[in-house]
Structures are given as structure tokens and as C-alpha cells.
């Protein structure tokens, strides 16, 4: 099955093409095709996973030359190692769940077929990104993913906010992509190839200077910053919640935003080669994680809380990967678990965050609002949704033995040896547990705060609850593959260097569980028991609350610092274009016209004059000389005899010839003038008869 693994992205691509070109008008058929394609891909991915396990970590590569050039050869191909196999499974399963869920959620949407074709296109791009075997290919799919993200965020483009969010997401990630392509070009220049394995071999051999490696690492990380919504380019992700909720679940929680994490994990060799780049990654991850978690504390839009939670969790993964790179760069024999922790959390997070979003979608579907202040008590009406939502919340909070517990534990373990990181990681874990359960309690428990909406609420249809249950199952059990007691679990599966395995760290487990439980406990006290009033807390920390509610004023700062000056600059440029450049162009045009006028005069009077003049001269000459041709035989004879006499005279006396010649001319002129004075006398034209 490995040899055919390139087919996995092809299935959804085929579905996309078929839907767009053939079955657009048959809505049921379109969604069926899309779902069938993704299910085939899921099955194929499972077989690939089995095959990869059988290879014991030896990567499989299949590549075809694409562009041959003496300087650099580009190729297209697939590269499958354990990390790829895991990503394939995650992407196909989440995509499958989301598509089935969409059958219920998007019911009655006028652009139903288009929605499913976009989902297929996105799945194709994401799978292509995952299986790519070189940086050139990953960049192509990287951009395709960005495009589909744009299309899907702005899917309800009638809403201004949705189309604006689409543009914002596209442009913001483009800024990161610029760094990414610079990194790729640097890599091509210094390593001479873009193939993963060749690049990593060269980097490991020290073929690239460390300074350059740091630059490459940071530039490539820029791409991840854009796609994975890391500080300072995180602003697009919360706005991206304007898209349909299943899209948020698929793209902006589980898969696309994970692409940045995947990229960092994939190019880990680069970061291992440069401790500075790795530390940059870790610090950015930590800042993002803490900032987003604190903003999530006060948001009231159910999807925005989840969006900031996603940003925070992605920061977690990035931080773990960065710390791994830093530790290994400092000490090649370090037993850091950061790489395993980051990729493991990537997988578990994909499942429970998709579940959270789909659950939120189910709630929104029922009450038709995003505002959690208008919900409450919904667990009575939505049993399955609330149950699965609680499971996912427990998982993200890190409660034993749900999958989030295992991966979060590993991230905490990865910060061992970095006290600052460890402190903040635990603090973020606490905040995460708190805001997730604030969300749960406000939504599902207590008294309904908006009776009208509560009365209309109902449990979602089976197409929506089935994926919820399946993902809940995964949220509980997917993490078990990474239990520290397993000697051949996830940790030894996705290793990068020497086989790493270490026993469980009970102290870390205990501490992180205490932190998570206390976070939940605080949320329980405030929002369930209402022992402490949330309003009082809000009043007490008014400035901090305002700061968080306004998301640290990032959007405002960007608007003031970047967008406004840029617009002013653009207007200046427009002015200079309109006046200077256009003026110059218009002057050139004006001058050309004037110059052409001058040349026209020259043409008219000099050139044409010369031509006409030649004609006129000829006419005049012929008018004069036509009298020689007067048709009179006797005149001709006279000329002949006069000439003959002239020749004889010239032979005898050349001097005498002059007088003779003058004489002849004078007589001829005299005769001619006389004839002119009486033109037609005795010279009547007689027409020949017949």
C-alpha cells in the first residue's frame, strides 16, 4: 500500500473535480462523492499506517523528477515516515467526521455542492502537504491550503465580516509565507537541493554554516507562525471563526493550523543544528500560548474561546518542539521528550479540538447564537452534545486517563530543566482548565439565561451526533498509544535520532493533574456554585479584564502601526503615480504629438514638395518640349537638315558653328513665339475618318 500512497491525496482531488465539473447540480450525489472519497482515503491511510509500523521507522520515499536544472532539480514525490503516517490518519479521520457532520450542519445551504467540493480540495491540499517529500512541494500545497482556507472562511461571503475575515486570514498568512519562501530559497542556495532527506543529511554533516542555518530556521519558522497562528501573526485565527463551524473544526482547529507544527517537526534537523533558532521557536510558542490562553478567559463567543484555545495549544506544541531542538543542540545525547510531546499533542489535540468545535457547532445549530451569556442549562436538551463536550473539555484540561492528559504531561516533561518555561506551562494548563470549564458550565449547566432560545433548542440530527461520539471515543483513547508505560508506544514511533524511551515521571503527572483539577475546581466554584461572583472578580481586575477583552489591542495596534501608515503610504504612492508617473507619461505623449506635428509640416512641405516639384518640373518641361513633336513631316526634315548643316559647319569651322547655332536658335524662337501668338491658324485639327 505504501507504493500507492500518492493516491491518498488524489481521492479527494478527484472528488473535487467531479463535483465541480459534473455533479454540481445534484446536491445529494455531490456530498456522497466527497464523503466516499474521504472514506477511501481513511482506509488507505490505515493500511499505510500498518505498513509503516512494519518498517520499524525506515522512511519510504518515491520521487519523480519534475524540473531538471544544473543548479537545482525539483522533484515531486512522496515521503512517508511515522510522522507522515500519523498526520495522514489524523487529517483523513477528522476530515471524514467533519464532512459527515456537515450533512446535518449545512442542511439547506444554497451552495451545498460548492461547500463539499471546497472541503475535498482542502483535504487534497492538506494531504499533499503531509506526504510531500521536498520543500518545493510542501510550499505549493502550503499555498493551496491557504487558498482553500480563504475560500471556506469567506464561504458565507454575503456577510461583510466573513469576507473580511477571509481576506485577513489570507493576507496575514501570506506575510508568514514570504518568510517561508525566503527560507526555502536560502536552503536551496546553501544545500543545493530541496529534498528532505538530502537537505537533512547535508545539514547534519555541517554543510551549511550555523549562522545561515539560524536564518533558514527562523525564516522557515515564519511560515509556521503564519499558518499556525503564532504571535505576532495570530490575529487572523479568531476572525476565521466567521466561516461555517465544521470548517473551523477541520481547518482552524485540527488540520491546517497544525501544518505549521508539522513543518517545524518535519524540519527539526534544521533547529537541532541551531540552538538560537530553536530557542526563538520555543519563546514564540510560549508567548503565543500564554497570551491566547489569557484572552480566552474573558471571551463570550463560544467559537472565539475555542479559537484562542487552539492558538494556545498550538503554542504549546511549538514550544515543546523548540525546547527539544534547543536541548538537542546543546547536548546531542539529551533525553528531551519535546519532539515526541509536540507531535503527540498535535495528534490528540486534533481529535479533541475538532470534537469541541463540532460540539460548539451543534450548540449554535440549536440556539442560533454564539454568545455563551445567552445559553445555559442546555445539557437537559442536548444530552449527547453536552456529554461529548465535557469529555473533550476534560481531555484538553488534562485529566487522567483521557488522551489530553498523556500529551500534556509530555509537554510539561519537555520543559524540565527550563524553570521559566515550566512555570508558564503549568500556569497555562491551569488557565486552560479554567476557561474550558467556564465555557462548559455557562453553556450546559445552570438556569437558561435566554428562555426563548432555550425553548427552541433541540438535540442535533444523527449525522451530527455520530461524528461527535466517534471523536469523543478518539479523544478518550487516542492518547493511550503514547502512555509512558509502553516501551514501543508513540514515543519510540516518531523518534528523530536515537531511539528514545523513558519511564513515566510520576511527579510531573501528579503536579499537572493537581493544576488541572484546581483550574476546574475554580471554574466550578465561580460558574456552577456561584460562590464567588464573576462580576465582582471582573470589577476587581477591571483594567486587566478590559485589556484581555480587547485581545491585548493587537488588532488596534496593527491597525495604527501597520495598516494606517501603509494606507497613507499607498495613498502617497497613488498621488505620485497619478501626478508624477502619469504626468511623465502624458508629457511624453504630448511631446510626441507635437513633435509629430512638426515632422508632418516637414513631410508636407519638404518631402511632398520635392516629389510634387519633380512632377511640376516634368510637366513644365513637357509643356515646352511638346512643340518639338508637332507631327509635321516638313518640320522634322527641317531639323534634320539644319542639324546636318550644323555638323558640316562644325567640321569646317568650329567658331562659325557658334554663330550658326545662335542663329538657328534665334530663328526657331522667333518662329515659336509667332506661332504662340496665333495658335490655331491654318493648323486645324482634322480627325481621321474611321
Amino acid at each position, binding site marked *: 500500500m505504501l507504493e500507492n500512497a500518492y493516491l491518498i491525496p488524489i481521492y479527494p482531488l478527484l472528488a473535487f473535480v467531479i463535483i465541480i465539473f459534473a455533479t454540481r447540480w445534484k446536491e445529494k450525489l455531490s456530498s456522497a462523492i466527497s464523503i466516499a472519497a474521504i472514506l477511501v482515503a481513511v482506509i488507505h491511510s490505515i493500511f499505510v499506517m500498518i505498513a509503516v509500523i512494519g518498517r520499524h521507522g525506515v522512511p519510504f520515499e518515491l520521487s519523480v523528477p519534475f524540473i531538471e536544472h544544473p543548479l537545482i532539480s525539483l522533484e515531486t514525490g512522496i515521503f512517508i515516515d511515522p510522522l507522515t503516517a500519523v498526520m495522514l490518519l489524523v487529517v483523513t479521520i477528522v476530515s471524514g467526521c467533519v464532512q459527515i457532520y456537515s450533512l446535518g450542519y449545512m442542511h439547506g445551504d444554497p451552495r451545498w455542492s460548492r461547500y463539499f467540493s471546497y472541503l475535498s480540495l482542502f483535504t487534497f491540499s492538506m494531504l499533499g502537504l503531509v506526504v510531500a517529500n521536498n520543500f518545493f512541494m510542501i510550499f505549493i500545497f502550503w499555498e493551496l491550503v491557504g487558498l482553500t482556507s480563504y475560500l471556506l472562511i469567506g464561504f458565507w461571503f454575503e456577510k461583510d465580516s466573513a469576507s473580511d475575515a477571509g481576506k485577513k486570514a489570507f493576507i496575514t498568512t501570506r506575510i508568514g509565507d514570504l518568510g517561508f519562501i525566503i527560507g526555502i530559497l536560502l536552503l536551496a542556495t546553501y544545500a543545493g537541493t530541496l529534498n528532505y532527506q538530502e537537505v537533512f543529511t547535508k545539514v547534519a554533516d555541517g554543510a551549511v554554516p550555523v549562522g545561515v542555518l539560524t536564518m533558514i530556521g527562523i525564516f522557515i519558522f515564519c511560515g509556521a507562525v503564519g499558518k499556525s497562528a503564532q504571535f505576532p501573526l495570530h490575529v487572523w485565527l479568531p476572525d476565521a471563526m466567521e466561516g461555517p463551524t465544521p470548517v473551523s473544526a477541520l481547518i482552524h482547529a485540527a488540520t491546517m493550523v497544525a501544518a505549521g507544527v508539522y513543518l517545524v517537526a518535519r524540519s527539526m534537523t534544521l533547529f537541532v543544528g541551531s540552538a538560537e533558532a530553536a530557542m526563538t521557536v520555543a519563546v514564540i510558542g510560549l508567548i503565543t500560548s500564554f497570551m491566547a490562553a489569557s484572552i480566552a478567559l474573558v471571551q463570550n463567543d463560544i467559537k472565539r474561546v475555542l479559537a484562542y484555545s487552539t492558538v494556545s495549544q498550538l503554542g504549546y506544541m511549538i514550544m515543546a518542539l523548540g525546547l527539544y531542538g534547543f536541548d538537542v543542540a546543546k547536548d546531542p545525547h539529551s533525553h528531551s521528550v519535546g519532539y515526541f510531546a509536540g507531535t503527540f499533542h498535535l495528534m490528540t489535540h486534533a481529535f479533541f479540538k475538532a470534537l469541541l468545535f463540532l460540539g460548539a457547532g451543534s450548540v449554535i445549530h440549536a440556539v442560533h447564537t454564539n454568545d455563551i451569556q445567552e445559553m445555559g442549562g442546555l445539557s437537559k436538551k442536548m444530552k449527547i452534545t453536552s456529554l461529548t463536550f465535557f469529555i473533550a473539555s476534560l481531555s484538553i484540561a488534562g485529566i487522567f486517563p483521557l488522551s489530553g492528559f498523556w500529551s500534556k504531561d509530555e509537554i510539561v516533561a519537555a520543559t524540565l530543566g527550563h524553570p521559566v518555561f515550566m512555570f508558564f506551562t503549568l500556569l497555562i494548563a491551569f488557565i486552560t482548565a479554567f476557561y474550558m470549564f467556564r465555557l462548559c458550565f455557562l453553556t450546559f449547566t445552570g438556569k437558561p439565561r435566554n428562555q426563548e432560545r432555550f425553548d427552541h433548542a433541540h438535540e442535533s440530527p444523527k449525522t451530527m451526533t455520530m461524528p461527535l461520539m466517534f471523536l469523543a471515543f478518539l479523544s478518550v483513547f487516542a492518547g493511550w498509544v503514547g502512555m509512558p508505560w509502553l516501551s514501543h508506544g508513540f514515543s519510540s514511533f516518531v523518534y528523530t535520532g536515537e531511539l528514545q524511551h523513558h519511564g513515566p515521571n510520576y511527579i510531573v503527572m501528579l503536579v499537572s493533574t493537581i493544576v488541572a483539577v484546581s483550574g476546574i475546581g475554580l471554574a466550578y466554584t465561580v460558574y456552577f456554585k456561584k460562590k464567588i461572583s464573576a462580576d465582582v472578580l471582573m470589577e476587581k481586575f477591571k483594567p486587566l479584564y478590559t485589556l484581555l477583552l480587547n485581545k491585548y489591542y493587537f488588532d488596534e495596534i496593527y491597525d495604527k502601526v501597520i495598516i494606517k501608515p501603509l494606507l497613507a503610504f499607498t495613498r502617497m504612492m497613488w498621488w505620485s503615480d497619478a501626478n508624477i508617473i502619469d504626468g511623465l507619461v502624458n508629457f511624453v505623449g504630448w511631446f510626441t504629438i507635437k513633435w509629430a506635428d512638426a515632422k508632418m509640416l516637414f513631410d508636407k512641405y519638404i518631402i511632398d514638395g520635392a516629389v510634387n516639384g519633380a512632377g511640376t518640373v516634368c510637366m513644365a518641361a513637357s509643356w515646352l518640349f*511638346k*512643340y518639338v*513633336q*508637332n*507631327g*509635321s*513631316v*516638313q518640320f522634322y*526634315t*527641317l531639323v534634320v*537638315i539644319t542639324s546636318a548643316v550644323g555638323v558640316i559647319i562644325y567640321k569646317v569651322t568650329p567658331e562659325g558653328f557658334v554663330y550658326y547655332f545662335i542663329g538657328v536658335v534665334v530663328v526657331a524662337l522667333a518662329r515659336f513665339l509667332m506661332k504662340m501668338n496665333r495658335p490655331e491658324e*491654318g*493648323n*486645324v*485639327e*482634322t480627325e*481621321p*475618318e474611321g
Partner: protein
Amino acid sequence: MLQYLALAAILFAIGIFGVLTRRNAIGILMSLELMFNAVNINLVTFNKFIGPDNLVGQIFAIFVIVIAAAEAVVGLAIVLLLYRNWQGIDIGNINIMKW
């Protein structure tokens, strides 16, 4: 000999004058005959005074007479046709070759 040549020159001059001034086509032809005869006299004269041993000049004169006869035939034929087409043989009116 001078007398012979003078006669020939006078005859020739009369012929030229006739050709240039006569308006009658027949008259022009007749003047032409005069010019031929002037030439003939020249030929015969030079034959007698310069090379009496051979008769080239005499024979050439006979040739000229024969050709002149032929020429007169062609010329008179043309004149005849002119007369038929123009109802006259005034050479001054025959100028269809004019520009």
C-alpha cells in the same frame, strides 16, 4: 568639273527648298526626285574625274534611279491613300502624329 558639281549643288538646294516649302505632297515627291538626280550627277562626275577606269559610280547612279522609281511608287501610293482619307493632299493638314 566645278561646273558639274555646282550644277549638282544647285539642284540639291532646289530639291531641299522644294521639300521644305511645298504644301502639295506630289510636289514634295518631285523635289525629292530632284535631290536624287543631284546626287546622281555627283556620282557620275566623281566617277569620270577621279576613277574613270572602273564604273562603280555609274552603276551606283543606275541603282539610285531604280530605287528612286520604287520609292516613287510607294510614295505615290501613300499620297493616293492620303487623298482618299483626307480628300486632299495638303501636307500641312496631315499632322496626326502631333503630340
